[in-house]
């Protein structure tokens, strides 16, 4: 899962990036509205944390532009503006959630998880695919009830595939949602992660669709096709 943080305060931006990375997300940062808008316009994010009081272009304008351009990723507004008319304005501009500063990091993380889950059409915080279960709140994975230990990148790959269960996910798409904007990208590493996941979770959960990408399906679902 890849998240964009648009926040002009350097210290808070760093904290957000750190906490989100620790929670298993790939994070990009922008510290002004123009840059934030550009990243959101060009990169496929799974969610955006957006401050309102931004230099160069204010957050509401950024949000309205994205919505006008058809960008429909969930946006959580994180701002010091706590008046109700400001919240109404933010939601009306197309935000999906509104959190006021000062805030607790756990709350932000919980709300982001819920936003992403809803955007991908899942009702529960716990995703299941056959014997594999992913608790999005803790980033914990289990196989037939036994906890499995995964690295951060493995977890990101698995989490994205599980959110998109049953759909074919291209290698480029997977890469875009697993790596941040500035990371060195190498499509071979995706293959490496898939390989490791198959070793840890069993070979039949993630199938390779030749020339198109990967698909994660529960064994019983596959029997039906």
């Amino acid at each position: 899962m890849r998240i964009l943080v648009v926040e002009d305060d350097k210290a808070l931006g760093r904290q957000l990036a750190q906490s989100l990375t620790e929670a298993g997300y790939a994070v990009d940062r922008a510290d002004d509205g123009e840059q934030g808008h550009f990243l959101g316009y060009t990169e496929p994010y799974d969610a955006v944390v957006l401050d309102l009081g931004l230099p160069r272009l204010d957050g509401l304008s950024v949000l309205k532009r994205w919505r006008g351009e058809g960008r429909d990723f969930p946006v959580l507004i994180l701002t010091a503006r706590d008046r109700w008319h400001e919240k109404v304005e933010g939601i009306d501009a197309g935000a999906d959630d509104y959190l006021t500063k000062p805030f607790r990091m756990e709350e932000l993380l919980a709300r982001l998880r819920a936003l992403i889950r809803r955007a991908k059409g899942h009702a529960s915080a716990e995703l299941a695919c056959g014997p594999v279960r992913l608790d999005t709140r803790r980033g914990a994975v289990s196989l037939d009830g036994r906890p499995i230990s995964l690295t951060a990148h493995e977890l990101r790959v698995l989490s994205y595939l599980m959110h998109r269960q049953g759909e074919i996910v291209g290698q480029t798409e997977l890469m875009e949602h697993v790596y941040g904007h500035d990371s060195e990208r190498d499509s071979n590493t995706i293959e490496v992660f898939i390989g490791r996941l198959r070793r840890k979770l069993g070979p039949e959960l993630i199938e390779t669709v030749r020339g198109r990408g990967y698909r994660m399906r529960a064994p019983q679902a596959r029997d039906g096709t």
Partner: protein
Amino acid sequence: MTGRSLGTRLVAGAALWIALALLATGFILEALFRSHVESALEARLSAELNQIAGAVAIGSDGRPTLTRRLADPLFDRPYSGRYWQIDAKGVAPERSRSLWDTTLPLPADDLPDGALHRHRLTGPAGQDLLVLERGVTPTEAETRLRIAVAADLAELAEPLARFRWTLAMSLTVLGLGLVGAVLLQVHYGLQPLARLRSALAELRAGRRERLKGDWPAEVRPLVEDFDAVLDHSAQILERARTQAGNLAHALKTPISVLANEADAQADPLAETVRQQVASMRRHIDHHLARARAAAAATRPGARADVAGIAHQLARTLGKLHQARGIAITVESDGMPLFRGDPQDLMEMLGNLMENACIWARMRVLVRLQAAGDRTLVVVDDDGPGLPSARRDEALARGTRFDESVPGSGLGLAIARDLAELYGGTIALADSPLGGLSARLDLPGLRNAP
């Protein structure tokens, strides 16, 4: 003059002026009338004098006599007030019967013939007499005669009194009429001031934002200056709000950073920072809310559509609590209006409705009602409710029941502070839905134009 009422001053001034003018008129008219009746009397006396002069003859004893009786019977009735007398040197004066046994005490006087003299003498029975006298020397006599005719001035008193009475009555009626006209004029002339007063009352009541309109030239500068003061204070208010917002933004981000750093640590210092940050946050929230509200509550002419704002909030809260699938219903009775700033209303309603959403299981019901010049908002939820013993605590400043439930607690206190600044109240009760019912009573607007 008290200076308390312009109307009284104008009417009193005009009444004094009218009274003086009418009194002067009365005196002048009375003097003119008196001189008129006196000269009429004199003309009659003068005619009688000529009659006597024409009828006088010198008898053999050298005494003057009248050859003809005078027509007026009053000359024969004793002390009637009409007298004549003819003095000749060396003999007793010849006189009218009305003089009886007295004589007119004519002052010693040396008149040329034909000249007419006027005297005021005291006659018999103390009468105040007007006497006309002429010296005549008849051709057959060598002595000069002094012929005098007298009339009692009391004769004039009765017509004069009658005239005075009529005059006084007419002038009084005229005076009253003039004062009435002045009253009308003052009332009409001061009407713009009365209109100004009712315009100010409308301003205070929130039915009007500025005074400007169709005013007479004398009042217009006042109205324009007053509106300029209102504009100025609106600007100050706007600036104060902007500054409050800037302050909030400036403080809240560093507080967030501090709190997050502390949350990531587990030592006693981090715990102290956490507590202090929480306290800072409460102070900032509380005082910012108050500062914004104090500025807003004094702004005249503000109004807000309660139903519109409730629907906007329901939409927003529906999205914010989307995951929990809470149904927010807004029911509106009539067209309730709030006399105050729309943003402050949104703040109060938003806090109450959010509190209900946080605790509700499935339903939040918002009922709006215009009741006379009050507007009632009742927010019900089907949550666990709040024991009556803890309700005061919930409304008290800075209380936060449950730190683990986001945003709970402080909202009710902020809503109450704001409501009280506007002269409203918040009461908590058991809801028919099973949870808490918050009842907000606010100043409304009776007649929505």
